[in-house]
């Protein structure tokens, strides 16, 4: 018993230290995010979802702190319901989760720290968040958010010129897709004798949306009207 008590104390202390490390890293990432009060950027959205066929779409992305985000496109664009702007919200609200340092990994030749966050509330939609953070630049390189409603959403970020503002050049969001099937009467897809529903590509349960950003205009002001017109 005498030997066990120091061991338990050691575990508790180390857990506290790692937790503090995780919190410190998240704080550094948040500090970097907060440099950006607003921005707009051109974005090319490429969709690789098994049951959706469409060409890449060009759009303009607008952001204004704390959480206003709007994409405007001339054509129809498809975006993931979650995983696109969750990163700011998930990491920004520091009192609603516990953070844990889970180790290190090499990701695209960069040493990253893996931080997991677990929501304090058991009614939260997010079940678990996992972040691969570059501790040198305080940049999130990858995030994996598991939610009750949309399964697991994996986002990967590539940074370029605006790494100092934590604004990526490219972002790939991988989501779990449910099987798509609508009644023939609704689709009016009558006499479709050549249906390729058994196409293996369509059976895939993962969908990807790749966003390429360019022409960032950071902290130059974005009018509120842009977010109203929906």
């Amino acid at each position, binding site marked *: 018993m005498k030997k066990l008590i120091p061991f338990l104390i050691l575990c508790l202390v180390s857990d506290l230290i790692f937790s503090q490390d995780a919190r410190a890293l998240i704080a550094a990432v948040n500090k970097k995010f907060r440099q950006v009060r607003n921005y707009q950027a051109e974005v090319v959205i490429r969709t690789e*979802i098994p*049951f*959706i*066929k*469409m*060409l890449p*779409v060009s*759009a303009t992305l607008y952001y204004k702190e704390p959480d206003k985000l709007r*994409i*405007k*496109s*001339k*054509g*129809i*664009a*498809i*975006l*993931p*319901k979650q995983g696109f702007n969750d990163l700011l919200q998930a990491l920004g609200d520091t009192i609603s989760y516990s953070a844990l340092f889970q180790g290190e990994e090499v990701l695209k030749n960069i040493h990253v720290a893996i931080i997991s966050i677990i929501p304090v509330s058991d009614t939260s939609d997010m079940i678990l968040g996992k972040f691969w953070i570059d501790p040198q630049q305080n940049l999130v390189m990858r995030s994996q958010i598991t939610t009750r*409603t*949309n399964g697991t959403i994996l986002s990967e970020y590539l940074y370029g010129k605006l790494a100092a503002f934590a604004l990526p050049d490219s972002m790939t969001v991988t*989501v*779990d*897709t*449910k099987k*798509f*099937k*609508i*009644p*023939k009467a*609704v*689709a*009016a*897809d*009558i*006499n*479709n*004798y*050549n*249906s*390729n*529903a058994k196409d293996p590509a*369509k059976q895939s349960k993962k*969908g990807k949306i790749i966003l390429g950003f360019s022409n960032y205009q950071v902290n130059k002001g974005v009018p509120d009207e842009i977010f109203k017109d929906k």
Partner: protein
Amino acid sequence: MLLKLTWLEIQKIAIRPRSYIGFVAITLVIFLIQLAMWIDGTSYIGFVTQNIEQTFLFEGKILNGNLICFIILQTLIIQIPLLIALVTGDLISGEAATGTIRLLLTRPVNRTTILLSKYIAGSVYTLLMLVWLGILALFVSLLVFGPGDLIVLKTDEVIILQSADVMWRFLTALALAFLALSLVGALSLMLSCFTENSIGPIIITMAIIILFTIVGTMEVPLFDRVKPFLFTTHMIVWRNLFEDPLPMEQIRMSVYALVGHIVVFLGISIVYFKKKDILS
């Protein structure tokens, strides 16, 4: 002579009140769809896209003139052949019923020319109906709802076509619809040769189209083998134009099937009509 006879047949079609039923019906249906979409289009779109919107968000104008036109074309796909048969189904039998066929055949024109002139006149009627449909469904919808990317819903996939890539597809689709409806004209004309009352061929044409469409719609493995051989399957070849990439082989096969059916139906009509005893 063929042109002169065709012009006479067009005039005959033009003076019959029933020839205008199709135009009125199409106008009413299109107006009702446009009105419904104007008032409640957003909730209709929400209903058909709810499956996707559990995971994804749509950004952009989904409810636009191109989508309304596509919905109209889909809705009218079963009705238009029936409206065509209403006119082409009694081109021969109608005259047999009234007794004017005997008078017509006393003229120094061979029967093949007479039959072909009736078929061409029926095709002109079909073309006019499609032009009317195109004006109302496409151009009026674009005027009212504006242009935009077209979202094509299939039972197992969604295709989004860019606005600039849509107009040629609609125009080609109308051309293919003309070919499909010409087949209905040929079928009803053939049936019209066999009977001497005007209502019979119209009803039989409608019954065949409805029966084949039901067989084509039901997802029963037994019917799956039959579907490629039903002409109604190929009549919706226009829908293939809204796929990406275009299923060229399937389009080609359907065009061959439609042309083949027209040739066979017309061939049977000519052979039978040439030997037919005119007793009325």
